């Protein structure tokens, strides 16, 4: 036992080591990534750990491991669960013998996501248990115990921490690490693992029959608790339950929900003891709907009658307002405090020397009136440069491109996608585009890593999650095998090369692929690559502003003239842009 100040995801990783976990797979996605990032750097490992190609692949691998009787963890962000939804839904039918915990991290407020979907709805849809931690300590304890619960039910368990659990910190009491002893053994049982109609009808019935037992067991799990204090009650779930406890008056009853499905009889007994119930939960009204079903004539407040929002992230500040609105006075009354107006925004931007920026620059020059479907990665920030017209989900740059083309749209279509995203779900779209005769250009922004989520390796990087060398896949060979005849690879820092390749692509019909390759500037810096800085000669500079419009954060304005600051990574692209030759490498004429 020890106490440490840990990131939520570090505590979760530690909980897995205490279980101990035998098999780990996942695909990076904020806010889930650090769990595997921690597990893959442990020096002594008795477990298999991998970054999989996508979430579906990750879950199928983990499911198979759990079929072999070992404890498996599969991590992803909430939208990754959409990709893994196919195996998820049927894994509830087949069940597991070893514990299978699927961590799907939700992101209320969409800090780093394309939507605010609620993983608890998936758990109800698949009819499997879901654990929703309210603190980092509870996240640690829950994930440690979730494997045993999964084995007890013979079902995968969804573990759903939110951003404010994963990326919060706290003092956490840790348990001792355990040594792995289990070795996988596959017991053939076609009636369990071959879901032909004759088998699956029986499996579905068995899944439904498990439900009452699961509800009873979870009511006693210690994750769903209550205390009766008065005529009014607040029922809260996940981290909202923690915020509520800071505000709860002494005479108001409280129920915390951390495990689903909720036992209706248990819930009803609590609800019926009160006159008024306020339900506080982030995102979907999962608890509220359960409460309303058993409430009878008890008044229920929540999202459905407008007291609490469906969207966004909560805090004690927002919850105090919800409580006030529902007529339950919070212990702390916060004064309204709004941000000052007119402060220039500082959104995240692509780094100085980012390899994507010159590609976008050339793309907007060559395909001036083009349509730019893009994808999920750092390059989504190309929005600020007018280089991103659509993003919907992983891999959709390619398919949105071909869809727009077949709609009859006559503009040039140039899709951009990262290397990891291309391997994740881009390939089927490319095959489809070629097969069905689209006319478009796909630019693969190949920075040799999964940058946005923290530089995880991918199959093109040439190393595994644990740093061992492996066979790197060739993006060029994949594209050719998909049927693309025009496949050009260019250095992302070479504006002339980029422009030439793009002009060639523009002149040809069919699906063209340009692979713009250069290691991510952050990985390059960490690897010790030093390129030297660039400077602007004030005598040659005319102040035309072209370099400023390039949008590199290393180029600032000082006294009405551009100036290259300390952030310069030495990519040299601005020197290629300057029409007056005013930018050159430091120390060179």
């Amino acid at each position: 036992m020890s106490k440490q100040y840990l990131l939520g995801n570090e505590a979760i990783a530690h909980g897995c080591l205490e279980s101990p976990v035998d098999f780990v797979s996942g695909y990076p996605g904020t806010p889930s990534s650090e769990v595997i990032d921690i597990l893959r750097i442990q020096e002594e490992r008795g477990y298999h750990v991998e970054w999989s190609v996508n979430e579906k692949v990750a879950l199928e691998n983990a499911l198979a491991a759990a079929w072999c009787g070992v404890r498996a963890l599969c991590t992803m962000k909430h939208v990754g669960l959409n990709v893994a939804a196919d195996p998820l839904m049927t894994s509830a039918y087949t069940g597991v013998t070893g514990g299978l915990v699927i961590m799907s991290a939700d992101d209320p407020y969409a800090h780093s996501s394309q939507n605010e979907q609620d993983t608890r709805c998936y758990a109800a849809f698949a009819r499997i248990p879901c654990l929703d931690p309210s603190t980092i300590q509870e996240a640690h304890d829950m994930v440690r115990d979730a494997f045993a619960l999964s084995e007890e039910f013979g079902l995968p368990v969804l573990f759903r921490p939110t951003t404010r659990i994963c990326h919060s910190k706290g003092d956490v009491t840790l348990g001792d690490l355990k040594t792995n002893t289990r070795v996988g053994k596959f017991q053939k049982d076609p009636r369990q693992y071959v879901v032909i109609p004759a088998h699956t009808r029986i499996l579905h019935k068995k899944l439904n029959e498990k439900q009452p037992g699961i509800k009873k067991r979870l009511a006693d799990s210690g994750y769903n608790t209550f205390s009766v204090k008065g005529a009014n009650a607040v029922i809260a779930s996940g981290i909202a339950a923690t915020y509520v406890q800071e505000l709860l008056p002494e005479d108001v009853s409280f129920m915390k929900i951390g495990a689903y499905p909720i036992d209706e009889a248990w819930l009803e007994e609590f609800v019926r003891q009160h006159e008024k119930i306020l339900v506080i939960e982030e995102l979907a009204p999962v608890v509220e709907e359960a409460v309303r079903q058993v409430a009878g004539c008890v008044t229920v407040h929540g999202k459905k009658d407008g007291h609490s929002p469906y969207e966004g992230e909560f805090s004690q500040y927002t919850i105090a307002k919800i409580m006030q609105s529902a007529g339950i006075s919070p212990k702390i009354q916060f004064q309204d405090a709004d941000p000052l107006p007119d402060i220039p925004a500082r959104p995240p931007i692509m780094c100085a020397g980012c390899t994507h920026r010159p590609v976008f620059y050339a793309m907007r020059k060559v395909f001036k009136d083009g349509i730019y479907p893009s994808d999920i990665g750092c390059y989504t920030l190309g929005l600020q440069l007018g280089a991103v017209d659509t993003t919907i989900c992983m891999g959709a740059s390619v398919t949105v491109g071909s869809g727009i083309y077949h709609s009859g749209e006559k503009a040039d279509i140039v899709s951009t996608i990262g290397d990891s995203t291309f391997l994740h779900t881009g390939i089927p779209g490319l095959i489809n585009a070629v097969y069905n005769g689209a006319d478009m250009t796909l630019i693969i922004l190949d920075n040799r890593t999964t940058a946005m989520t923290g530089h995880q390796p991918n199959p093109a990087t040439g190393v595994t999650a644990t740093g061992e060398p492996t066979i790197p896949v060739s993006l060029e060979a994949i594209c050719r095998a998909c049927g693309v005849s025009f496949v050009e690879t260019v250095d992302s820092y070479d504006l002339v090369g980029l422009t030439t390749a793009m002009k060639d692509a523009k002149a040809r019909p069919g699906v063209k692929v340009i692979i713009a390759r250069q290691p991510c500037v952050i990985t390059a810096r960490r690897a010790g690559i030093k390129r030297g800085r660039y400077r602007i000669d004030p005598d040659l500079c005319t102040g035309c502003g072209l370099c400023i419009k390039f949008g590199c954060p290393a180029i600032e304005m000082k006294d009405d003239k551009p100036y290259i600051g300390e952030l310069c990574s030495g990519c040299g692209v601005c020197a290629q842009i300057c029409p007056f030759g005013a930018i050159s490498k430091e120390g060179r004429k």
Partner: protein
Amino acid sequence: MSPGYDVLVVGIGGQGTILASNVLGEACLMEGRSVKGAETHGMAQRGGSVESHIRIDGEYGPLIAPGSADIIISFDLLEALRYKHYLKTGGKIVANRHFVVPTSVFVQGVSAPTEEDILARLGDIGLCLLDAEVMAVEAGSPLAANIVMLGAASHFMPLSPDSLRKAVEKLVPPKTVEINRKAFERGREAGAECRG
């Protein structure tokens, strides 16, 4: 009001706000106190505005409510202004005098704020201003500016300077312990002047 002492550390992704918040958390642990914190990860770190919440003696959630921070430690003067509404009445701001003009200003042609503008808008609160980079360079590395800021803020937080020193030594890269030790002391001297 809420018990405990709420510290908001703000800056720009890459300036070391997370290390600074780790130092505060570690110091709490050394003093046997509970602590909760929240921070920005992921895409927002790419040069964007970032915030770390640290709730010393925190028992509940990790977030600080607007209008209730006891202190704001700002690594960039403009960010102090952006998060000013988090400060409680009578709270303190310890801020780096330097600020980076957001790239949005250049690209979108918005007017850039000046130091005078920012100071005028911060004028009504207790402000401790310091040239953190300059002091960090004096200590041996511009990268130690975050520890300079902590040194200056140490006068106002309910943590002993010794726990903070020990936490700094434990958490910074081993090769930079000496530089950061100096940076902390340099910041402490500057903070003492603010305190008067």
